[in-house]
């Protein structure tokens, strides 16, 4: 090993710190079934609303208990899993759909371009949170539907970027050469265009990842996302809100985790943008 290389070379300390925070949350989410101290759904009604550090004969509740006597730490650990999984999968859906449509619009031009890009304009003129709220309300809540709704309402951002980038790349000589060499549309788009527009798309995906975490938490907070008893940071906070005067920990611990996660993603996203934005590239 020769220390930090490539992208990570000369990363500022704050970026390394937030990357470590992100990695830690990801590890916790991944290992939730093994490291969670208790079953996140097990209720102990005689131990309701106990403060952090409360100890019984069977276990210590490091972060206290919630309104049904469930171990808050276990619920937060499992909530991390829900939060990251929803964000990851919905970003994957919207990134895939958005990029495909954007490349197609820029490559085909003509009516395909007009149809796709007009549709993008329209989708972007409905406030995203309302679009998600309406769709979830119609379809009903649930993990799979949540991912579908978030994924299929957020693709236009990627389409805009993929479209603009593909237009730039498509006029370059090496694409013309590939075309003359007999390469088909799909081969050109995936082998030659995609790798060259991946940077700006990564920047959008990172910003969207933070936003999707907030959306999942917000929808769950409103009762439209992940449904109880399955733990999500948003729904834990929503339930704890009524007890905030007596039991602040139920709201503030998941809230702090959420803030830390989104802050880390935003810091990393800003840094990535500065590194990958073609306008700030000095070549």
């Amino acid at each position: 090993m020769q220390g930090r290389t490539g992208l990570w070379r000369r990363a500022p300390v704050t970026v390394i710190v937030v990357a470590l925070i992100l990695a830690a949350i990801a590890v916790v989410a991944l290992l939730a079934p093994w490291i969670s101290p208790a079953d996140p759904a097990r209720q102990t009604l005689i131990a309701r609303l106990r403060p952090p550090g409360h100890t019984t004969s069977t276990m210590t509740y490091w972060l206290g208990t919630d309104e049904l006597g469930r171990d808050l730490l276990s619920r937060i650990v499992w909530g991390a899993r829900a939060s990251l999984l929803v964000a990851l999968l919905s970003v994957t859906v919207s990134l895939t759909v958005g990029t495909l449509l954007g490349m197609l619009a820029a490559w085909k031009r003509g009516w395909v371009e007009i149809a796709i890009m007009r549709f993008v304009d329209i989708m972007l003129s409905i406030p995203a949170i309302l679009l998600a709220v309406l769709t979830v309300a119609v379809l009903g809540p649930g993990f799979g539907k949540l991912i579908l709704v978030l994924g299929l309402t957020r693709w236009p951002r990627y389409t805009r970027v993929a479209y603009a980038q593909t237009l730039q790349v498509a006029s370059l000589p090496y694409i013309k050469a590939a075309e003359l060499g007999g390469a088909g549309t799909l081969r050109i788009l995936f082998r030659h265009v995609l790798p060259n527009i991946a940077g700006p798309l990564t920047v959008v995906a990172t910003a969207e990842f933070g936003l999707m975490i907030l959306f999942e938490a917000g929808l769950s907070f409103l009762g439209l996302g992940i449904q109880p008893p399955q733990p999500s940071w948003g729904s834990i906070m929503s339930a704890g809100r009524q007890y905030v005067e007596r039991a602040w920990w139920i709201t503030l611990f998941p809230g702090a985790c959420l803030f830390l996660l989104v802050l880390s993603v935003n810091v990393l996203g800003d840094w990535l943008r500065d590194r990958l934005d073609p306008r700030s590239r000095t070549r």
Partner: protein
Amino acid sequence: MLRYAFWRLVQAAVAVFGVMTIVFVIMRLAGDPTLLLVPEGATREHIEALRHELGFDRPILVQYAAYLADVLRLDFGNSVVQRQPAMAILMSRLPYTLELALGALAFALLLGLPAGVAMAVWRGTAVERLLAAVVLTGQSMPTFLSGILLILVFGVILGWLPTSGSGTWSALILPAFALGALSMATFARMARIAVVDELSQDYVRAARARGLSQGAVVVRHVLRNAAVPVVTIAALEIGNLLAGAVIVETVFAWPGIGQLAIQSIQSRDFVVVQVVVLFVSAVYVGMSLLADVAYAWLDPRIRLTPA
């Protein structure tokens, strides 16, 4: 200029039409829209009767045309829960949301703009780093977390401000601050970029060479030019604030259209939910139209560049 404004207006009309279509499609995603509109526990006969009354047994294209005609006449039908026109219900709640959104906008502008200018002027100093941290916090804090924190600190612990309800100035402060935090971050970032751009212009160097102090240059020249992009962002932010009200109004029990939307979803009153979404989207489209036209009017380079 008129030509540009006209084309932008046509675009906005297309967008509103598109939004109406998307809402129409979403309302039918779950299958029979009648089931969304009947109160819980309705009998089969009741559902059949309502399906016929609302015309959901007609061909889909006929339904679509009828829907467009109704929406253009601002006739959205009656709320199934409150049994009065959905539009009237929306209008009765709207003043509260407008008050909240304008309060949030005021907070965002008053805190965000000076912060952005300061970050540009004192670039690379501790001042910029401190303000950047504040901006990043505003950007990363979900409104339901900041809302609950504000309630806990200023309402419960200090007891200075009311934690819910509306009608007084003091009740507006906490929700407006919570709602405005994200816009504050946006304004600060935009103002910083705009001022940094202006500071690198030749006229700034010329003014400095004439012996004007940095402060005088910023106040007299830079701010005026940097204001152009910032003013237009403000119009766009109003649309975002109306949408963001969904969560903030729920946290603070603020009786605006955001709370109305969530209450209507809980009581399965989809006529009302649909009105809220259409209304906020229309405002959103209208505001971005206003922003673009204002931008073109203030900056001739935009309208003179062929699209």
